[in-house]
């Protein structure tokens, strides 16, 4: 049955692939394009592109794939299935973490983890910048302005995101006419 297969494919990818949404994309591709042939390669690429212009998680492309396979029910099933395993693991781990926190070794572990978290965030920012901004200096300037607004002036993220989208749109239209 397609619906069950759909749920299993997405739950499997959600349960075993580490490293965030982007890393999971090739695994999903292998299953839904190569293995089951639910989507053509072009449709898959377009599904990911749509996922990226949609706010929220990158993996919301699951909605597209589910819809293609089994309509609205498929969309709901695929979307929930891809997030369900890590939802369960995260909530269970959060529960353990609050209990273990008073242990000095665990507290030390968490203090050691903080620098890794900071490094991980900087690295994530660099790799997103590399893949989607390139070395385009107006975009890097835009990033710097957005960062200043967020950190220095504590501007609401909503306005920063909207503003950056509008500025990016206008930049393209004014700088490269036609």
């Amino acid at each position: 049955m397609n619906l069950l297969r759909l749920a299993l494919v997405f739950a499997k990818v959600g349960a075993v692939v580490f490293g965030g949404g982007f890393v999971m994309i090739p695994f999903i591709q292998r299953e839904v394009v190569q293995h089951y042939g639910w989507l053509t390669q072009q449709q898959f690429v377009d599904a990911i592109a749509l996922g990226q212009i949609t706010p929220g998680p990158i993996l919301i492309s699951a909605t597209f794939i589910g819809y293609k396979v089994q309509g609205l029910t498929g969309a709901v099933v695929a979307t929930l299935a891809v997030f369900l395993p890590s939802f369960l693991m995260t909530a269970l781990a959060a529960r353990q973490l609050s209990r273990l926190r008073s242990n000095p070794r665990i507290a030390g572990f968490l203090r050691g983890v903080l620098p890794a978290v900071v490094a991980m965030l900087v690295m994530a920012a660099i790799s997103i910048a590399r893949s989607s901004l390139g070395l385009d200096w107006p975009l890097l300037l835009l990033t710097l302005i957005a960062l200043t607004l967020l950190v220095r002036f504590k501007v609401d993220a909503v306005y920063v995101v909207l503003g950056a989208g509008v500025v990016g749109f206008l930049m393209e239209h004014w700088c490269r006419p036609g």
Partner: protein
Amino acid sequence: MSARIVVTPSRGSPSLLQLAHVMLKVGATGFGMGMVGVLHQEVVTRRAWLAQEEFADGLALANLLPGPIAVDVAVYVGYRLRGWAGATLCLLALLVPAFVIMLALTIAYLRYGQVPQLHGAFKGLNAAVVALVLSVAYRIGKSSLKSAAQVALATVALGAAFLHANLVVLVLACGLVGALLLHPRPKAVAP
């Protein structure tokens, strides 16, 4: 009882309705990892529901577990604030805006066979995502990298990440160093 590090929990747990409101906002404005930035601004900077270190623990957890990072952090925040109900609500509220928009785009795509061309706006949005992620790094780094050892560890970790070190291994290795060297000494007198 010996004095242990007491984690001051949130200043007043939010209601489920407040939590849903915040998550809908995060889901509607954060793009990918950008959600971590919006979430941090709402939950730590603006509302002080969680301390910097508690939020950072969620990020560490998200890296150690499979699945998407930003969604895991949102689930962690929900669980910390309101248990299972909070975690479930956070996941669903986070997904609703994306699901509705994606469904509309999918139906339009299957009818017209075209992806809207939004290159310029999309690049601008990504600039905001990079800024949001860096803002979280800055705030967590500033408030919680207190000792020289932690700053050194962050530098080494960043270098290793640059050289494509596995992030799960990196988080575990840094944690291990912390467990051995950075654990709090039990104090003789409680303040």
